[in-house]
């Protein structure tokens, strides 16, 4: 293991791993975090070679120093993160939006795309960011990449589930109805999407079908039951009207 010196108040120790760095920051009582990081800056990628180790150090730092560390690792960050599950775990522990934003921006489009390889991974990453950071993640990944990850309605549903409701509608609009409707091949696909969307957007989706198309799509009573049981009351009323079916009483929906 290669070790690198840090010197505080004329006292020098050698640091070779993330754990050693974390304990050094601890004994310095958090009073020299930036000084230590600056002294080690050229070697931080060697000291912190993997995501679990990055997590160890990040837990010892204030938000400002977390930002400093992420930026110091810039070109190595995607390699250090290894895969989407580690990015998810790191985002889950971050409490400051500016740190999350810096992490995503530093990873950049290429870094994020190298980590997030399917819709489930994208959904798990989005699960731990909110608001503007959600939007930033989508922008960095790009609509074409989101389309590529959304191979089935269930994929798009998983991604939508992890977004704020305002962003759900926006993403559906950006992806385009043609693309979204193209993912719906049967009643179950329809159920996936309707379940993920707020009812106003669901109604917009359903309006793309006439009763004959909808009947053909759902196909049989079993899939109709499956779909119906997963709808919010407003959605259930809307689709029942659309299909010209006898409406059920509201309280039976919840049961």
């Amino acid at each position: 293991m290669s070790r690198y010196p840090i010197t505080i108040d004329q006292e020098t120790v050698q640091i070779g791993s993330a754990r050693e760095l974390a304990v050094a920051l601890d004994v310095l009582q958090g009073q020299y975090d930036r000084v230590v990081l600056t002294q080690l800056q050229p070697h931080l990628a060697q000291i912190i070679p993997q995501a679990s180790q990055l997590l160890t150090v990040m837990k010892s730092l204030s938000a400002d120093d977390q930002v400093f560390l992420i930026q110091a690792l810039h070109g190595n960050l995607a390699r250090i993160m290894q895969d989407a599950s580690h990015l998810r775990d790191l985002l889950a522990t971050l409490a400051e939006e500016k740190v999350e934003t810096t992490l995503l921006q530093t990873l950049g489009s290429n870094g994020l795309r190298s980590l997030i390889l399917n819709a489930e991974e994208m959904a798990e990453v989005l699960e731990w960011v909110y608001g503007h950071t959600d939007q930033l993640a989508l922008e960095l990944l790009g609509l074409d990449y989101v389309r590529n990850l959304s191979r089935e309605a269930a994929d798009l549903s998983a991604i939508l589930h992890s977004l704020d409701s305002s962003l759900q509608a926006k993403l559906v609009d950006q992806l385009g109805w043609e693309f979204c409707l193209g993912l719906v091949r049967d009643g179950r696909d329809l159920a996936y999407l309707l379940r993920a969307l707020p009812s106003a957007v669901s109604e917009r989706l359903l309006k793309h079908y006439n009763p004959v198309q909808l009947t053909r799509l759902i196909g049989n009573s079993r899939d109709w039951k499956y779909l119906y049981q997963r709808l919010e009351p407003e959605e259930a009323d809307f689709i029942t009207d659309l299909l010209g079916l006898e409406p059920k009483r509201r309280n039976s929906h919840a049961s």
Partner: protein
Amino acid sequence: MPHEQIPTWTRNPVTPGSLTPLKGSKYKLIDGHLHVVNFIQETPGGENLLDHMDRSNIGKTVIFGLPVSKMWTSYDREGPDYYLASDSPCYYYAYTDVIVAEMVRSLPADRQERLYPLICGFNPTDGYAFRHIERLFAQYPDVWGGVGEVLLRHDDLTAFTFGENARANHRALWPVYQFAADHDLPVLLHQNITSVTKNDHPVYLWELEEAVAEFPRTRIVFAHCGMSRRVNVPFYYQMVDRLLAQYSNLYVDYSWIIYDVVICPDGKPSPDWVALTEKYSDRICLGSDLVARFERMGPELQRYDVFLDQLSETARVNLCWNTAERLYGRNKGKVKARPAISVPEWKIPGP
């Protein structure tokens, strides 16, 4: 016991930061209590351990695995890395002893001498537990220096562990204690003195006392004097004083939170504990009780300095070195080298 994610050593923003604690105690000592694997049985390895011992002024270390392993269940999206990291159960993991033995044997002989490994990977409620110990001594006769840390009463960990609740007076341990007595080996026990909400009296102490009294030839080491997180009782030093006075085969280690909670609260040594330690220093060891976080050995043991400074030279040397050396040193190879201590033949007196 084992703390990993909840360190004993914590930041105090009003204390001036310094790199000095990384260099360990100013007194060279034996760490009498160290888990070299974590709860998913990972270890940084023997070279890493010795490296950090050197950096932390630690001459020798009493090491052991962890007898239980945390399950990664179907409901854990993230793999839990600590026994409290999720609701998943723990199960007895005998291979922990093989990990420790192989870790030690991978080191050069002169470096192996700085480690005193103990056997812990058995279910203490299994009547066959002693067979595991016999098997390990047969397989690695020159490695082991005793038995421990046996995890018995341990609040949440007890609840998480599959099977019957382990306790110091479980009859499955009787052959283990006897084996240790027969071969003059120490047994290090983790036995909470009480349960989490019974902080007015030690409801489990009698279990320990039954074992210690039943096996007066077995040297039993009471890990961190029976204290655990959220486990405390009044009159602690009087209780430990009575136990040490009453049972000459009982030893204790000062490790983990016993030090911060009652021995040296707020960094100020308790005069009662200083007096008790002077009285029984030949029965008390020091330890870190870290779980595979070797890089924390320095700060963990350096925090004892303020207490050690208050002791006489004799007591200090006993705590830092002599007691642990006498308990755990010179035990390797004992089991194969000589038969078990035999009972004198009974001769019926003639008429």
